[in-house]
């Protein structure tokens, strides 16, 4: 079922874009005091790469994603998509936020259609909305309102809303955090399949080292706030990956050590 939905969804293949994060630092003002959040972060992502970002809670991962999306400007440093500087949001870089933030006044279908509507191309491309809904398995809920969905369903709608735009860089902020473990594993497989098919560049924030290792071909570990790149780990394993793979287990131990959890595990 998933495979056919995927095949239908691939109507507009968009190759991934390169992403350059160059010496980016960022800080927030809280009550006049400066709170440094990112400190001299440099990451260079190849087109089509799948990069997972791991780090302690509150270290600044979501903040970095907002900078990549173009929603905020960094205090210092530069971000580039291919060769153009990122200064504002663009539908080629779509974010699935930590919170699904569906529009409660729109039906599921209308929520997914949001991007195409905003870009003024919905009329001619309605099929893409249907395909995206098929992809996340929510076609029968197209007329439902967000308050009628479960947390996991809402997150899937948010994913469909992002995918329908055929982004060149897909930015995922813990999109699977609220899902039950079963749906989570299914969705992980779907994300990988989708990424392999469409070739977009993916940036995934997650708390789960195992998830990072199953999905990404590169795992970046951040330090505590202000976030610095602590480690940049290549995961050279073919897909589909197995959770029990001793190579991955070894990497996992290494990553948990970097996160200061070696004692507990």
């Amino acid at each position: 079922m998933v495979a056919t939905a995927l095949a239908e969804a691939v109507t507009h293949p968009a190759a991934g874009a390169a992403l350059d994060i160059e010496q980016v630092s960022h800080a927030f003002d809280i009550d006049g005091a400066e709170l440094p959040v990112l400190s001299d972060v440099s990451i260079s992502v190849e087109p089509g790469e799948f990069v997972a970002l791991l780090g302690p809670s509150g270290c600044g991962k979501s903040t970095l994603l907002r900078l990549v999306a173009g929603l905020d400007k960094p205090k210092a440093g530069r971000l580039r998509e291919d060769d153009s500087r990122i200064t504002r949001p663009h539908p080629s870089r779509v974010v699935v936020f930590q919170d699904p933030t569906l529009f409660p006044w729109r039906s599921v279908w209308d929520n997914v259609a949001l991007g195409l509507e905003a870009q003024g191309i919905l009329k001619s491309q309605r099929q893409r909305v249907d395909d995206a809904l098929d992809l996340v398995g929510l076609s029968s809920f197209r007329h439902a309102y967000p308050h009628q969905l479960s947390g996991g369903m809402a997150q899937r709608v948010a994913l469909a809303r992002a995918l329908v735009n055929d982004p060149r860089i897909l930015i995922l902020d813990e999109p699977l955090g609220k899902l039950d473990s079963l749906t989570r594993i299914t969705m992980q497989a779907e994300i990988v399949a989708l990424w392999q098919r469409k070739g977009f560049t993916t940036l995934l924030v997650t708390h789960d080292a195992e998830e990072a290792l199953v999905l990404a071909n590169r795992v970046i570990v951040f330090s505590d706030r202000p976030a610095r790149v602590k480690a940049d780990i290549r995961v050279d394993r073919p897909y589909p990956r197995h959770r029990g793979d001793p190579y991955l287990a070894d990497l996992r131990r290494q990553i948990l050590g970097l996160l200061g959890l070696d004692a507990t595990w």
Partner: protein
Amino acid sequence: MSTYSLSDGLASGAPRVSRVPLLTAWVKDSGAGVLASVAWIAFGLSCLWWADVGDWSRTRSLGIAAFVIAAVALFGTVGADYLGSAGKALQKRAPWLVALGAFLTVWELATAKFAWLPLPFFPPPQAIIEVYTDDLPKLLDSVFASVKLQLGGYLIGAAVGFLTGVSIGWSRAVGYWVHPVLRFIGPLPATAWLPIAFFTFPSSWSASTFLIALATGFPVTVLTWSGVASVSKAYYDVARTLGAKPSFLVLKVAIPAALPHVFVGLFMGLGSSFAVLVVAEMIGVKAGLGWYLQWAQGWAAYSNMYAALIVMSLLCSGAITLLFAIRDRLLVWQKGTVKW
């Protein structure tokens, strides 16, 4: 039906187990209807049994009408099963029919028959019916004038208030200039402008329209503004990353998200504009229900005043009901998220 099914056999052929539950069910469904018909028969009798203490021409017709209503209540609720949704609706309202019939009976006795209440000030039901039949043209003219004035002023005020509210909520510059003006002028009751407005406007009609618009506009502006201002930033972030332009952010994000607040403003505006309407009609405009009330008072025509009051309250509650219906249509999505 050619095929035999189990349920068919049960429904027609099976013997009734017991009659007692059926009886209680019947009382539950139709008891109130029977009571209602009793109450209205009592009202009819109270009209016809004794002689009126005054001179009213509609007493007999009213009594007969009461019997007709009693009959409708009885057959309507007892035979509700054959009347479909109309019967169900009647059954649901039967308790109110009981109360109304009882109230009218007491009113009839207290005024027309035994004059327990001082007479010219408390006219009997038949006197008010008399107004509706004999003074109908003038009353209808007044209704028409009131509705026209109210509708014009309200629509202008709501539209201007909505646009102003969205502009203040959206643009810092507009907010800078409009906010203090709103602070200064808004809380003033619109009726305070009355004397000045009647001088400065070319006609009392345009002056009243302005005042009604003002009374509507202030709450609509403030609530639209606060609605737009309280829209979560996360919605804008989502829309912006999906390629939304500023116009999309206003029309498709800010306004729909603010709509529940806008409706609160529209309800408040409706209430305060009714007050302005009646005062404006009493003081300046020589038409409408407010003016009719004033005129009736001048002639000590108390039945006319009650008749006009009843019409007025029907119109006001009708307007509120209409606004509720519009809101329910536009905000269906809210139904599951808040308690209505």
